[in-house]
């Protein structure tokens, strides 16, 4: 079962605390997860901490799932950072700003491992 979702990214306190600590496990824990509400999580059959794969027209990324019941149905959130940026839209539509929010995404359960920050960057070289 896949979830058709709208993807957004944004700041969090813990992501902020580790902005100058990006090689650490703490940064991974703060920025590498995908939040959705309990209903969407159970429709996917995933528990918090289980990995999900988020795919958009611009890329895909594997991160653990976390619950945020403030999200409406079909809205998924990854904190700003390299994991979120693996799936965002680089097109600025002529105004300089890439599309970091409101991107159509498909979320699915996966057994694949979530990449570390260096692994994620190595893919781009």
């Amino acid at each position: 079962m896949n979830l058709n979702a709208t993807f957004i990214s944004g700041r969090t306190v813990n992501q902020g605390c580790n902005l100058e600590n990006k090689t650490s496990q703490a940064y991974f824990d703060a920025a590498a997860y995908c939040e959705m509400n309990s209903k969407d999580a159970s429709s996917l059959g995933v528990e918090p901490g289980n990995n999900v794969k988020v795919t958009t027209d611009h890329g895909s990324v594997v991160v653990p799932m976390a619950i945020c019941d403030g999200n409406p149905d079909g809205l998924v959130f990854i904190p700003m950072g390299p994991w979120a940026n693996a799936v965002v839209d680089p097109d600025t539509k002529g105004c300089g700003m890439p599309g970091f929010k409101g991107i159509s995404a498909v979320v699915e359960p996966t057994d694949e491992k979530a990449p570390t920050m260096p692994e994620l960057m190595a893919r781009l070289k």
Partner: protein
Amino acid sequence: MIIKDVLCPFCGCLCDDLAVEVENNKVVDVKHACKIGASKIMGHDRIKAPMMRDDKNGEFREVSYDEAINESAKILANSKRPLLYGWASGLCEMMAKGILLNEEVGGIIDNTASVCHGPSVLGVHEKGLPTGTLGQFANRADLVVFWGCNPVQAHPRHMSRYSVFNKGFFASKGRRSRKVVVFDVRKTDTAEMADEYVQVNPGEDYIVMSALRAIIADKADVVPDSVGGVPKEKLVELGEAMKGAKYGMVYFGMGLTQSRGKYKNIDNAVSLITELNAHGKHSILPMRGHYNVTGFGQVCAWETGFANAVDMSRGIPYYNPGETCSNDLLMREEIDSAMIIAGDAGAHFPAQSIARMSKVPVIQVDPFHNPTTEMANIVIPTKVSGVELEGTAYRMDSVSLRMRKLVDVDFPSDEEVLDKIIAKVREIKGASS
């Protein structure tokens, strides 16, 4: 030793009431700061020495500052289209040097607003900015709207110092003196603390603002039953509350600048505020992220006439966001080298942009190892501004404040590194002309 009235070099709030305990030239405790500010001032593992490598997949080797600086100058001086990006975690003094370096190399200088409040700058070009200072808002606002921003997570002390919980001259009961409304696509922690949470469909903020403008102009009859996921009756209620406010305040964030409409959302929000000013007093302010991202806009505007994305390849400043912003340049594969300084493009640009940046020589000037380091050929570690170096920064409301130095370190400042690169670039360019 306890140093009082320290300014926090993390976010645009620039909280100026911190107490930092320093023992033997080391920060041992930070009081009054939020969790993020305390984490920043307490410090993290840093890059120990300059490093270089030819192959981005190879190992770095430690080099001297002179070697790293000379090599950086060679790369920049010999590039046709260098990009100088970042700047927001630095002080105004180094920004001025960066703008001078960009002039010397005929490059493009762009700051982190490119992926933050760049669209707000465009919105301001279109409609202006009816705004004020945080002190005015703290003392006066009786209606506080957070639209597409989440200060509980991103600006943790904003609500207690400036906008919501603090008592003010005309808001003597603090929180109880103010009505707080949050517009967002999801129920954030800030929304949990508001009197009203208005859930907007993703990418539909623009039409919600347009509906509010119609209601405020007494044309509610043209508004459909539901707009952007918000029922008309709720919009009418909010429109009346806005009209009835003595001092209405709108703070906005990436929920507007990064979602559909981008700068047009800001344009519409400013129009809403302008029209509300026929009824009461209303202001609007972008919630700026990096502590001195506002400063870059100021310095760049007084040096070049433009706030960001300035192309000096013609020898005169040229500015056209959508053409001269970092991600546009990267996606068109136009740049042939990049200097990333006091900002982390590697972590905060879309992966496809970074994949393009990986194809050109990258110079990083930063105290910390981050995703940009993974893409760099040359890494030059510098002082942490506002902790190890004093200088000027601008708060989110464009008030300039003097950041303080808390400890001494041996690392050079960004400004010193830039001075040396400029001198070397002049030497190389002088020899070749």
